[in-house]
């Protein structure tokens, strides 16, 4: 009996000590970055989000990040190490970390994992994403109105759903205002290789493109556009500093509200992996309407184009489904007829074609 009391007392002390620790010690949050915050694109946008987290929570959290982590099996080691170091929530910020995150999530059931921007989940791993394609639709509208040669060049990284959605949304926007314009795609097969991105941009220009768009991470394409006197769109963050005369606008990824919401939910115990809205298997996929995607001011374009861009952006944030019929793929097959539209699941599972207006075929 005495022993039992002693044990209970010890337990109580333990609990009190733990509660004390919870107040005193910040909660550790880990981030895994694909490149370095200096890329001025994708990873830079995540770094801005992480800094906002620190600002918002102050001493309540302590964040660490690991940069230049290659996608694939190598990242498993890094994610596991972050979990071992006592991080309570780990954000893995690239598509290719999906399977490694899933694997480590099984090994550390008490740690919460948030993976961007894939589609696999488990009991302690959720998925977050931004509707990047909404910004690309608006870019398409601007490109369609601005192009004189009716040739638009697009730099793409890897043929994953997110990139295909972007190309198709861009083409749908472009064709909605200019049915004669075409967009040709160069796959750079890298997220980040400034020289190759610049080479590909030069090739597009040599082939007659006068508007360039990119789904790669460095500002090299815009710098090339600036020098050649053509126009383009920035990626992930505002790239105006690199191309003050060439940047029409950038779609800026704003991860801050998402990160803060996820961490807040974890701290008050309400965090779940949740069933996604619609058919998309994930719990957060927001865009223009929630300021997860922010467009920089429309510049270097005539007022009527800027007005059309604003109208398109308003339409999309008002709930317009970009992937609504009628549209065809670029081989002429009808994908959706009038009145039909895609739900989120379709975007991830069924979009293995280019829409009308895109030249070529999806590789692989």
């Amino acid at each position, binding site marked *: 009996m005495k022993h039992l009391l002693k044990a209970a007392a010890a337990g109580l002390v333990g609990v009190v000590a733990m509660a004390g620790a919870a107040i005193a010690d910040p909660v550790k949050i880990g981030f895994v970055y694909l490149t370095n915050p200096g890329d001025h694109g994708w990873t830079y946008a995540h770094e801005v989000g992480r800094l906002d987290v620190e600002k918002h929570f102050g001493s309540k959290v302590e964040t660490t990040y690991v940069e230049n982590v290659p996608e694939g099996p190598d990242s498993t080691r890094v994610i596991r190490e972050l979990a071992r170091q006592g991080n309570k929530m780990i954000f893995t910020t690239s598509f290719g970390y999906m399977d490694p995150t899933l694997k480590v999530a099984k090994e550390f059931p008490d740690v919460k994992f948030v993976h961007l921007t894939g589609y696999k989940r488990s009991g302690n791993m959720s998925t977050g994403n931004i509707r990047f394609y909404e910004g690309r639709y608006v870019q398409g509208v601007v490109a369609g109105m601005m192009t004189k040669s009716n040739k638009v060049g697009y730099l793409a990284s890897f043929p994953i759903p997110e990139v295909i959605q972007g190309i198709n949304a861009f083409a749908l926007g472009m064709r909605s205002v200019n049915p004669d314009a075409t967009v040709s795609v160069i796959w750079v097969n890298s997220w980040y290789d*400034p020289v190759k991105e610049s080479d590909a941009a030069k090739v597009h220009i040599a082939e007659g493109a006068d508007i360039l768009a990119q789904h790669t991470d460095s500002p090299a394409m815009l*710098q090339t556009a600036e020098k050649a006197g053509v126009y383009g769109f920035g990626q992930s963050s505002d790239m105006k500093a690199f191309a003050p005369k060439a940047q029409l606008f950038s779609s800026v990824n704003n991860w801050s509200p998402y990160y803060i919401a996820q961490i807040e939910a974890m701290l008050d115990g309400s965090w779940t992996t949740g069933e996604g809205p619609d058919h998309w298997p994930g719990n957060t996929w927001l865009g223009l309407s929630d300021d997860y995607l922010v467009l920089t001011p429309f510049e270097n374009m005539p007022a009527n184009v800027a007005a059309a861009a604003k109208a398109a952006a308003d339409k999309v944030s008002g709930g317009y489904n970009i992937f609504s019929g009628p549209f065809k793929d670029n081989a002429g097959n009808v994908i959706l007829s009038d009145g039909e539209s895609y739900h989120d699941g379709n975007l991830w599972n069924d979009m293995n074609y280019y829409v009308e207006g895109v030249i*070529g075929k999806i590789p692989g």
Partner: protein
Amino acid sequence: MLEQLLLTVLMTSVPLIFAATGELVAERSGVLNLGVEGMMLMGAVGAFATAFGTGNLWLAIIVGGLAGALTGGVFALFALGFATNQVATGLALTIFGTGLSGLVGAPLVGHAIDGLPQITIPVLSNLPFVGALLFSLDPMAYLAVALLAGVAWFLKRTRGGLVLRAVGDNHDSAHALGYSVLRVRLLAVLFGGMMAGLGGAYLPLMLTPHWAEGMTAGRGWIALALVVFASWLPWRVLVGALIFGGITIMQLAGQARGWTVPSQFLSMLPYLATIAVLVVISRNREFSLANFPSCLGRVFHAGK
């Protein structure tokens, strides 16, 4: 259109010509320096910092070359001074250069500069086609070809070149004849570093006028392969660099035109072509190994 594509080929080849020519000189003296990537990055960050800080692009070119040479000096200190294993030291130099350039360059991220101006050679640049292609390039492109020609002349026609080759082919004999093996190699390594630095400098000064960590993205390794490709002969470096650049640009243009070959395959092409040529030339030993420096990568101990 073709003109513009060919111009892109030329420009994308320039950093490779610089770096491979420098490495060729180092290797002809018997030193294998695998740190080209690291030296290029140091040259790139040095050049960009100077251009951004002073606005003087000519000074930036010089600083780029110096930064590369200094980084090469670190290699020389260990590989020549302390006779460490050249392969390991070179790999370490790449890692060192990548890290240090990232650290030094951190405050430079997010800034842009105006790149190098074109130099239009009067009269000649008015020639149809070749005028735009060959006579209105940027100063560093001319410099690359001039240095390449200088190296070709030096190695083949001068006494210094002969000594350098002798040191690379048989360091014991060269030593016995009274030549300072280590001094020759030190100079060759420093020259190689300077050339890699210039190649790196071309990236932020001309191709993509900003600094980004790791912006060379593996071009140092391609330069190393080009030296073997060129079978240690300077002019073949030019041919190799142009072939490599040509295939790179061709595959990009093919995609833009909607060729239905998988782009992953096209991206492999430049590397496949390099390997294919290596296989072909290595079948002919006389051709491929005639100029192979026999002491390449071997540590020299004086007085042994």
